[in-house]
């Protein structure tokens, strides 16, 4: 009975979302107040209905209700409770419900935090979000109903793919979706201002914190996914340029461009139509990503089980939403007025140049991801585009961007004296060159690639330090300034992590008998044997390894080889000894003859700086959002 309530809630939500979408927009167009004011309450009702529906689905998982098909396909009574909760979004139907629920969450937040925004704007923004919600609910109700029943109910479920039975599943998808879906707010604001015909700086001021918030979530979501893959998959990789990974990274790149462009539009009123286009593009890319992952057009470990009907629906939805937005853009955008004047050497130009690089990078990753599809659609055969391509293309494009990152903040709005900028930066340049030469030497092997990586990272860091010093002399810095410094520092830290691991990691594949050791990265790892360990829903062979340096045991590591009852493929759980300057990673392979084991060990220098850098980026964004400009609005709300 209860799952049916969940289904009914979805149907009701669809009806109310339709009202939320259609009436306020018409109301704004025709000046009908009675319809305008429906926006906020409708959004709140939809939120409550979707929350109910979502909770009911979660309850079905918790209570092991295997009469619900989706639960039977993704859960199992032996599954630990926390993973039963994560399993709610472990498959297509549930994750889509999560998507829509989060969309409605963002909508209701916008409706609550926009009291000082004029009613017409609010109506349009919530209306656009309502239309999107309606379309997605229609999709769920017609092709992807999570509450579909299974008669007769299964004795027990099929269980969750062992790879997904991990805390990563509990956090990564919600975080990622908050980001993806969050760009819908900037999108809605952009469409609303195109509809109203008023493309002014006010729109940018409102969009900025919402966009930054979405960007923070997306950054964390991608970082979590990368870290999860690193420790879960058993062979130490952290990014594979897999189509689904790219589907989240491309909107991130455009979102970053959008963040910077919004800054210019807000401060100087310039780039209005470019920023609007970026806002439309960022969310369109989120939708495109959703299509790619669920339609079966691309091969990926992440792809959901596919059904051509779903692919067609999402494609039509995508075509309608993005097509109509771009049409609106083509008609209305040219009418806007230009912002302030700025010279070729101004901060505006540098930000715009940075935008170009970010968008080109996004375009390149998109090209590489879709190219096999393109070639296949033209019946020209089947090719693969993998990491070698993306690495060859992405790195050269990002390099100038990193240089710009060090220069840009030194330039002034409207106009700046480039000679002055150069004079202020010479020290940073020196630090960069010294780092480029020294660090590879210290690490023991000079390569041009690693040298360049360090040079760029330290260029950004040194430039940032000089900026902070200069700003400190002028008085207390704003949170905006601090946020920017921390976020840019995060990128530099990220680059250091990537460079270090890429150039200086060590890997050894050995066969080990109990008592033998293997050395890697200055450490000795001694094998102490393997024991049998039962788990809640698996049986494991648990290895014991002592991590030693200079004869002293620093840690004991326990990698496992697990056989889940619900799966025939054995799973490897690597053991990682994490540290600020290195990870030691031990992975148990197969058991060999005469009780030896195949073991793989890695020394990964500074690998945690990769995700540490991402955390800093997110922190920078968070600090920037709490700038007093936005806090004033919040205080007003509460009063």
């Amino acid at each position, binding site marked *: 009975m209860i799952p049916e309530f969940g289904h009914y809630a979805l149907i009701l939500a669809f009806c109310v979302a339709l009202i939320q979408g259609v009436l306020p927009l018409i109301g704004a167009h025709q000046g009908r107040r009675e319809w305008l004011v429906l926006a906020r309450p409708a959004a709140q009702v939809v939120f409550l209905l979707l929350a109910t529906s979502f909770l009911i689905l979660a309850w079905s998982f918790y209570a092991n209700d295997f009469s619900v098909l989706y639960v039977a396909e993704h859960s199992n009574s032996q599954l630990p409770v926390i993973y039963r909760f994560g399993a709610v979004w472990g498959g297509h139907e549930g994750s889509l419900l999560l998507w829509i629920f989060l969309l409605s969450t963002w909508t209701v937040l916008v409706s609550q935090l926009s009291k*000082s*925004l*004029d009613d017409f704007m609010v109506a349009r923004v919530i209306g656009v979000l309502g239309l999107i919600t309606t379309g997605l609910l229609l999709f769920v109700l017609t092709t992807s109903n999570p509450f579909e029943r299974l008669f007769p109910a299964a004795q027990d479920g099929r269980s969750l793919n062992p790879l997904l039975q991990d805390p990563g599943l509990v956090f990564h998808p919600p975080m990622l979706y908050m980001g993806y879906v969050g760009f819908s707010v900037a999108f809605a604001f952009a469409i609303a201002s195109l509809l109203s015909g008023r493309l002014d700086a*006010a729109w940018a001021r409102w969009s900025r914190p919402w966009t930054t918030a979405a960007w923070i979530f997306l950054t964390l979501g991608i970082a979590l996914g990368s870290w999860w893959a690193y420790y879960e998959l058993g*062979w130490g*990789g952290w990014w*594979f340029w*897999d189509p689904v990974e790219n589907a989240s990274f491309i909107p991130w790149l455009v979102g970053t461009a959008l963040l910077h462009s919004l800054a210019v539009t807000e401060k100087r009123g310039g780039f209005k139509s470019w920023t609007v286009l970026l806002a439309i593009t960022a969310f369109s890319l989120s939708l495109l990503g959703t299509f790619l992952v669920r339609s079966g057009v691309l*091969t*990926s*470990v992440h792809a959901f089980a596919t059904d051509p009907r779903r692919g067609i629906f999402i494609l039509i939805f995508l075509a309608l939403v993005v097509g109509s937005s771009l049409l609106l853009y083509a008609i209305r955008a040219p009418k806007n007025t*230009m912002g302030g*004047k700025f*010279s*070729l050497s101004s901060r505006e*130009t540098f930000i*715009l*140049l940075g935008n*170009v*690089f970010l*968008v*080109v990078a996004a*375009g*390149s990753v998109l*090209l*590489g991801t879709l*190219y096999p599809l393109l070639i296949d659609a033209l019946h*020209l*055969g*089947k*090719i*693969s*585009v*993998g*990491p*070698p*391509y993306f690495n*060859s*293309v992405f790195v050269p*494009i990002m390099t100038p961007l990193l240089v710009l990152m060090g220069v840009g903040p030194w330039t002034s709005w409207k106009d700046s004296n480039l000679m002055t900028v150069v004079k202020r930066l010479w020290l940073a340049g020196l630090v960069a060159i010294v780092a480029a030469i020294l660090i590879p030497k210290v690490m023991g092997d000079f390569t041009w690639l690693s040298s360049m990586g360090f040079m760029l990272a330290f260029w950004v860091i040194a430039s940032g330090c000089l900026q902070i010093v200069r700003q400190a002399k002028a008085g207390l810095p704003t949170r905006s300034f601090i946020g920017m410094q921390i976020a840019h520092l995060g990128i530099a830290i990220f680059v250091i992590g990537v460079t270090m691991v890429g150039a200086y990691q060590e890997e*050894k*594949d*050995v*066969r*080990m*008998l109990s*008592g*033998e*050791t*293997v*050395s890697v990265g200055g450490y*000795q790892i*001694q*094998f102490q044997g393997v024991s049998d360990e039962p788990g809640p829903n698996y049986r494991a062979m648990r290895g014991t390894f002592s991590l*030693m340096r*200079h*004869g002293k045991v620093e840690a004991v590591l326990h990698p496992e080889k697990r056989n889940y009852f619900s799966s025939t493929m054995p799973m490897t759980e690597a053991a990682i000894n994490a540290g600020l300057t290195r990870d030691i990673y031990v992975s148990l*392979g197969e058991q060999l003859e005469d009780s030896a084991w*195949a*073991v793989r060990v890695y020394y990964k220098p500074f690998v945690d700086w990769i995700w540490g850098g991402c955390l800093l980026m997110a922190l920078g964004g968070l600090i920037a959002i709490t700038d007093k400009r936005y806090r004033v609005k919040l205080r007003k709300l509460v009063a």
Partner: protein
Amino acid sequence: MKRFLLFLFVLLSASGAFTNVLAEEATPLADDPVVEQRLISISEEMRCLVCQNESLSGSRSDLANDLRQEIRTLIKEGKTDEQIRAFMVERYGDFVLYRPPVKPITWLLWIGPFLILLLGIAGLLIYLRRRNIEMVKTDLSAEDNQQIDALLKVSEKESSHD
């Protein structure tokens, strides 16, 4: 002398200098580490055909194991990387290569990014030039500018208050 050597021995043992010597060092899994290195670098750029987007180097599937063994044999026979790639492509097509070969159908792929970059920068420069010309055309007198600034300040105050 003997006592000194004994003392040295005890000192060194305590500091762990002999750890490696006393505990057995594990043997590499591969018979020939040099061959293995080449195998890894070649197979990393190839796709595992039965997997959902994994490299031939990382996959543990049966076919991947067989193909890696095949490549080891080819390496020991003295074949070059090019020849080994050709061997795989002959049997499985371009699909098996993660680094798309540069041929007419992939020109767009390889040139594309740099083309887009050039277009982007060119577009930017043209836009900036045109903008400056526009700006010059619409430059107003100093008085007009003052009037406009005053009006703008007033309207901004208004719109930030609702």
